[in-house]
């Protein structure tokens, strides 16, 4: 039982990062019909912010997290204005693939500026140690991604539902033309959505550095699983993306635990295929 619980817990932690990536992808897709292939690279950049904050200032990832989110939020705005907004005026294929090109640019830039080797945080972190519940041992650092995922999901929900900007974003996602007619600046709604998704990935990257190594290409796997989570959750559904991300983390870890680590990804794929064959539009798709 405790092995199972431990596996479940680890799975939820792993799934939390996927959930965070997936929520960003779902937000961007739901609002502007852009497939955000660069979400994994925003995660990677968030990890590097955490790394340098730790190396230069000795900061813990949780302390560096607001900084990381802010840096990625601003970067998201710049990227939206310089690249995405232009692509949106172009043909549909370039709209779909623009973030793919962007992700490669970011990976190679990171290689150029930060080097290609694997890194871990050079200075010791303060938020560490374990909590022993008897049936479950919790590494404190690993709580960070999970709590972050919960907080982000809650904040996104609140923001979209109750704030003026959030409502404007929802209206724009339903009908961009009508949004303009009621006085919303649709371009602003797009910019904020893209930047928010990017900030969420940045914060996730920060949390990840507590126990994961970083290198320029680290985002690729998370990106791929994030996409699958979004597909499973029902494209555009943020709640769906959140829950599917957690579910995939659990499937992944439990398969590794009970079947074989070598084939643990198969568990995720089976869950995905079963989910999609019963509900082709995703668990929460309409």
């Amino acid at each position, binding site marked *: 039982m405790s092995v199972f619980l431990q596996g479940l817990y680890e799975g939820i932690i792993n799934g939390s990062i996927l959930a965070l990536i997936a929520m960003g992808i779902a937000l961007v897709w739901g609002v502007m019909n852009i497939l955000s292939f660069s979400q994994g690279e925003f995660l990677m950049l968030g990890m590097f912010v955490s790394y340098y904050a730790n190396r230069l200032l000795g900061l813990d990832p949780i302390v560096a997290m607001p900084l990381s989110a802010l840096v990625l939020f601003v970067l998201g705005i710049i990227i939206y204005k310089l690249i995405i907004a232009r692509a949106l005026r172009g043909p549909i294929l370039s709209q779909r693939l623009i973030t793919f090109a962007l992700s490669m640019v970011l990976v190679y830039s990171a290689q150029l500026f930060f080097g290609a080797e694997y890194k871990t945080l050079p200075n010791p972190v303060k938020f560490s140690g374990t909590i022993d519940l008897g049936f479950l041992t919790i590494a404190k650092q690993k709580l960070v991604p999970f709590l972050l995922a919960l907080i982000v999901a809650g904040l996104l929900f609140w923001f979209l539902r109750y704030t*003026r900007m959030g*409502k*404007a974003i*929802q*209206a724009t996602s*339903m*009908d961009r*033309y*009508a*949004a*303009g*007619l*009621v*006085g*919303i*600046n*649709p371009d602003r709604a797009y910019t904020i959505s893209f930047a928010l998704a990017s900030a969420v990935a940045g914060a996730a990257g920060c949390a990840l550095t507590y126990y994961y190594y970083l290198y320029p290409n680290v985002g690729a796997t998370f990106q791929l699983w994030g996409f699958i989570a979004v597909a499973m959750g029902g494209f555009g559904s943020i709640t769906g993306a959140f829950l599917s991300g957690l579910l995939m983390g659990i499937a992944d870890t439990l398969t590794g635990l009970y079947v074989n680590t070598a084939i643990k990804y198969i568990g995720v794929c089976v869950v995905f295929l079963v989910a999609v064959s019963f509900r082709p539009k995703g668990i929460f798709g309409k």
Partner: protein
Amino acid sequence: MLKVEHVKTGYDGVPVVHNASLQVEQGSIVALVGSNGSGKTSLLRAVTGALPIMRGDILYKGQSIAGVKSFKLVEMGISMVPEGRHLFGKMSVRDNLLMGAYSVRDKGEIEKRLQSIYKLLPRVEERQRQQADTLSGGEQQMVAIARGLMSKPELLILDEPSLGLMPKLVTEIFEFIQRIKDSGVTVIIVEQNAVATLEMSDYAYVMQNGETVLEGTGQALLADEQVKKAYLGG
């Protein structure tokens, strides 16, 4: 109040409106009629900042608004109820109306406007909790107009408000538009229902192949042989 001067506009560089001019006096109802595809909707889109002005100019209260984006025009007092309603389908009726007052920040003021709309349109109030895309066509049209009024426009532009409605509802909508005018709002209306529209209008323009070809008071156009033949069924 509004002056459209020799405007040319279109989609992706291809013009569909070649030369349109019209003038709208404050407090009047001006109609724009013409056959399908003559460019009425496109002209209104150009006026409300959704299509580029390729030639000519648009003046609102004496000031050029060519190239000004839709959302800015709302703040300047221009509101458009587009063809096809364009409600926010997954939002409630009430939220749709609230979005209509997006440019207003004073909550008390928004609530006041909402209540005055509900007073004018009790049926909209009855439906306020319902999701917009589950409304009937007539109800949707009412909500679309109501949403357009929430910004308290000085100039209200209506593109085919009676499209797809049964005659009784058409009459109701026309009466409602008349009341909007009486409250001091200037109205531009595009309609298939040419007779009823011309009867109600102070002035009217006829569009053909992307050009405004005829104009006159509603009564004059109703009597015009050419107009009768082309739009009033003989």
